[in-house]
């Protein structure tokens, strides 16, 4: 039994500094994404989240060019993109959708240029893959303070917005009638969303970042009934998914005959979240089938 356990939890796993840093960063990312993501799903802003994640590729590749930490690049790009979206697509939901799409295209064009320059100026070929798909095991402990600061900012922002954010997410009409500045709350929330995306991009890569933002929140919505519980559940699901992924990736070092390389952690995160989402929908599906089934033989 202990031999089997040792095969799963490699003796070096818990003492590895790489694992410890990855686990710390991903826990903060999961908490931020759980808090912000529940509102993203309620507000139907998953596409905006996806766009901010994609655009943070531009920031990440730009940061690599000027040798600044990628987290700062992701953050600046996501916040700037959020601001531009807000400025040009304010009036109607459709206008917002269009604005998101246009800003996304422009941002990704820049990313193409920056990634090209990265590959020309640096001999490393890993930058693109690391920015786009993440590489949790290359994060150093020096990044942790910034991750904590960003996380605290986003969580505090959502907590401070609190009830007005919840009511304006559910019904802008009700919120406006109560004198809540719906537009201001929306902009402040978009800022929190941009920060969450930056941390998620830092953890599992820019184009996978929405999976961590929206996935655990979507699972939590299937399992809980109140906003506070949904947020707690989303954070817990995010932590479980990332930590299990770190373990699996760590074990995968051995899967290819001592190739010395692990499978990407991000692959496991996204896959586990996807499976979790399917599993969480199963009880409802089965229940519905049980309700329909007795009707069938009569036909």
């Amino acid at each position, binding site marked *: 039994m202990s031999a089997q356990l040792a095969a799963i939890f490699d003796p070096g796993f818990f003492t590895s500094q790489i694992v410890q840093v990855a686990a710390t960063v991903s826990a903060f990312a999961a908490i931020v994404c759980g808090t912000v993501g529940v509102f993203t799903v309620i507000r139907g802003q998953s596409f905006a989240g996806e766009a901010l994640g994609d655009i943070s590729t531009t920031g990440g590749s730009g940061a690599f060019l000027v040798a600044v930490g990628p987290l700062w690049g992701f953050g600046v790009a996501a916040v700037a993109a959020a601001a531009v979206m807000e400025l040009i697509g304010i009036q109607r939901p459709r206008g917002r959708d269009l604005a998101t799409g246009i800003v996304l295209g422009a941002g990704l064009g820049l990313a193409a240029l920056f990634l090209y320059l990265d590959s020309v100026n640096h001999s490393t070929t890993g930058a693109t893959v690391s920015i786009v798909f993440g590489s949790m095991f290359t994060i150093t402990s020096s990044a942790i303070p910034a991750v904590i600061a960003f996380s605290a900012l986003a969580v505090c922002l959502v907590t401070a917005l609190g*009830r007005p954010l*919840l009511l304006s997410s*559910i*019904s802008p009409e009700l919120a406006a*009638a*109560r004198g809540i500045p719906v537009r201001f709350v929306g902009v402040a929330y978009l800022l929190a969303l941009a920060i969450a995306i930056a941390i998620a991009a830092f953890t599992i890569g820019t184009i996978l970042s929405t999976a961590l933002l929206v996935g655990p929140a979507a699972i939590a919505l299937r399992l809980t*009934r109140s906003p506070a519980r949904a947020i707690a559940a989303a954070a817990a699901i995010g932590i479980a998914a990332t930590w299990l992924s770190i373990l699996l990736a760590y074990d995968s070092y051995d899967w290819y005959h001592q190739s010395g390389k692990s499978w990407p952690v991000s692959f496991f995160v996204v896959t586990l979240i996807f499976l979790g989402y399917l599993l969480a929908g199963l009880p409802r599906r089965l229940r519905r089938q049980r309700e329909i089934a007795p009707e069938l033989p009569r036909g």
Partner: protein
Amino acid sequence: MSDVATNGSAPILAVDHVSVSLAGREVLRDVSFAIAPGEFTGLIGSNGAGKTTLFRVILGLQAADGSVRVGGAPRSRRNPLIGYVPQKFQLDPDVPLRTRDLVALGLDAHRYGVATPSRARRARVDEMLEAVDARDFADARVGTLSGGEQQRVLIAHALIAAPKLLLLDEPLANLDLRSGHEVVALLARITSEQRIAVLISAHEMNPLLPVIDRIVYLAAGRAASGTTEEVVRTSVLSALYGHHVDVLQVHGRVLVVAGEAGELADTSDHSHTQTQVEIIS
């Protein structure tokens, strides 16, 4: 028909010569009426008559000429005297918001930060849930409720902050007759118990006739107000619509019928002399 006829007491709502233009179109034209404390008033008009705009004016969300006073003071945003039930309310069934969460938001949704749970808060929410017969689905998600149940929850959300004036925008629009009747009966009971004035909009006045004290009839942006007998008459409504309408009583129900024969009689085209009847309300 008078502008301010409020049985002596100071009106909770006084709308005075209010006009609103949206994108160059005059939506409300010189609308005046008043509501006394505890009075149940129906705001009747067809779709596009300006009912929602009038609500937005009263809530301080829409610029307007003229004056609106709520409880004696000029209108303002976030007026604690007003409770509001919007026409448009739709939640997906998977939104994690229980009936009791939505009702609790009615207490203090305008305050930033997170609510601190307390026994008093919970008791107040339970009391409100009881008042609208929502105890059975207190812990169900709002998105899974029927239309009638949702209306009751929204009424609880609006009433928990103890307003003096409740505005309801077409609460019966998407309800079957029976749920509509239940909602109206519930409203009449609670608001008379707590002496809350009600302004309820509808395009169909008949479900409201048993409970309303007064009526404000909106047509073509203009309003006529008074008791039902004063307002729902051929002469008054014809003047309001700007063309002849007939008010008919059929088995206790009121029908407002637009007959355009008078206008068409002038034309020589006899194929059109047949009376065109449109039931307006």
